[in-house]
């Protein structure tokens, strides 16, 4: 089973915030974390990832800084801001509420004679 783009679209920012909330990270590693967290069920395209980083940086949810790698190229790390953490907390609460309702709406059945 694969998760469709439409289904996950609204959650990409939250996914990234959740990962960055655990530690600062850079693009490729965030992509890997998505794979690990989803147990290989979901692959976030890197192009999508970079677009999301830009969006989150603009909205003030994350900031970035350059690492001080001594060898190889310097990595650009992303860090969640207090505003981003607040958004994440809100998004998690929203999800906890919505997932049950949506699940009910999609799979629930109306018992015969039930009315309100």
């Amino acid at each position, binding site marked *: 089973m694969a998760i469709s783009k439409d289904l996950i679209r609204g959650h990409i920012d939250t996914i990234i915030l959740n990962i960055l909330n655990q530690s600062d990270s850079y693009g490729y590693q965030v992509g890997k974390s998505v794979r690990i967290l989803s147990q290989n069920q979901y692959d976030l395209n890197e192009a999508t990832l970079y677009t999301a980083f830009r969006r989150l940086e603009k909205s003030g949810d994350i900031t970035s800084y350059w690492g001080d790698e001594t060898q190889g190229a310097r990595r650009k790390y992303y860090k969640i801001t207090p505003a981003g953490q607040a958004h994440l907390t809100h998004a998690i609460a929203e999800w906890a509420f919505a997932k049950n309702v949506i699940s009910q709406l999609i*799979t629930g059945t*109306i018992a015969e004679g039930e009315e309100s």
Partner: protein
Amino acid sequence: MTSIEMAIRTRLDVIFSKYTPNEQLTEFKEELVADLLDAYQDFAKQDKSHDEALDDAFAQLGDIDTILRELSQTKKQENDDSKSQTKKSSFFEFSNDGLHLGNLHIDGQGVRLGDDIVIDGKHDKVQLGDWLHVDRSGARVGRKYYRFDEDEPSDTTHTPSWSVAHHNAQIPTSDKPFVFDYKNADVHFYSNDKADLITLDEFFSRDNNRYFADIQETNEQISVTQGDNPLLFHVRTQVNIGLPKDFNHGKITMINHSGRIMAQDLSLQQFNLYLHAGNFRGNHIQAETANWQIHAGEVKVQELNFKHADIFNKSGNLKLDNMTVEDSHITVTSGTVQISHFTGGGQFATHTGSLRLRIDKLTDDLKLQAKTGSIRVTMPESQDCYFNLSANMGSIVMDHTETTHFDKNTNSYKCGFYGDNPKFTIDANVDSGTIKVY
């Protein structure tokens, strides 16, 4: 600068050359260099050559044109204010918020030493550098990941939590073909502990006998057909089909119009699949013949071993790992084909999409075709062979050594052989696109 970094930069230069340079683009390019280097290192572990790992690293990047266009249009903005905000905190702090001593933090979030050592009770998380990560869902030690919960496809014989009705049937095995015909169910094939019985367990989210499958035997076949399927409301259905471990003469045909199918540890004579919309996931499947037709869906199978395989996917992706098929006919109309550790021969075709094939060993000729798209092939490690590569519109790139002999060698047509003792031929053709051979 290493030669790898140089190669990455050169390729990026080509991609970036379409855009007017500005600060944002330069910064983004630097970011990409580091990430691509990482990706390259990962691919280099399994890929044979430098070039191949480089192509794979760039392939997983996806389409960055949109973001490049965006960045090339952004004006430099006051982006310095964010940096001035990060205030310097003092070396030692002790308050109700917790204890901070240099980069050692003990507070409501747990115990952290820099970013490397994290003990976080609230989220049940322990992390030691990049090497050990343990949390509720699993543990990652080095590069290995261990999952704690047992939500694996292997554990499919349990009753789903939403089930309110259970129908169980046992059918003696037979040389006649078995046809399972479902409209919309989650189907799990697994190997049971019986010697000569097929076990069928159906679970439903509503309780009514008329949903139960109907089992019929005729002279030609034994059919198991999904029961009534109400149109007005949805009845969730899961079917677990247990087959004897060595059902080597078994002929199974599974039809599912929409829904998913999982199969694990099967050893059969014939395993056919018709899936209209949905996904198929398999692990360790062995059969003489396999005929799979998928209309729109994703197919992911590990360890498959067939004599003849006919796989057709109209739209969707096909990912096969550890595939041994003497005679393969693989066709994907629109979508990608990714095959790793392939042993065998046959035909592979995509109409629109890419074909990525890593060959372990050839046991027959191979014919590869992509109408619009790309073909990328990794040659077997230690096996000589002939090659015949042509691109009607496009180009061919090939790694060659002193043992490569060319009969013809142009940009769009290459034929010849590798080594002293070639036996089988790899024939590849693209209408418009590229062929790359490593």
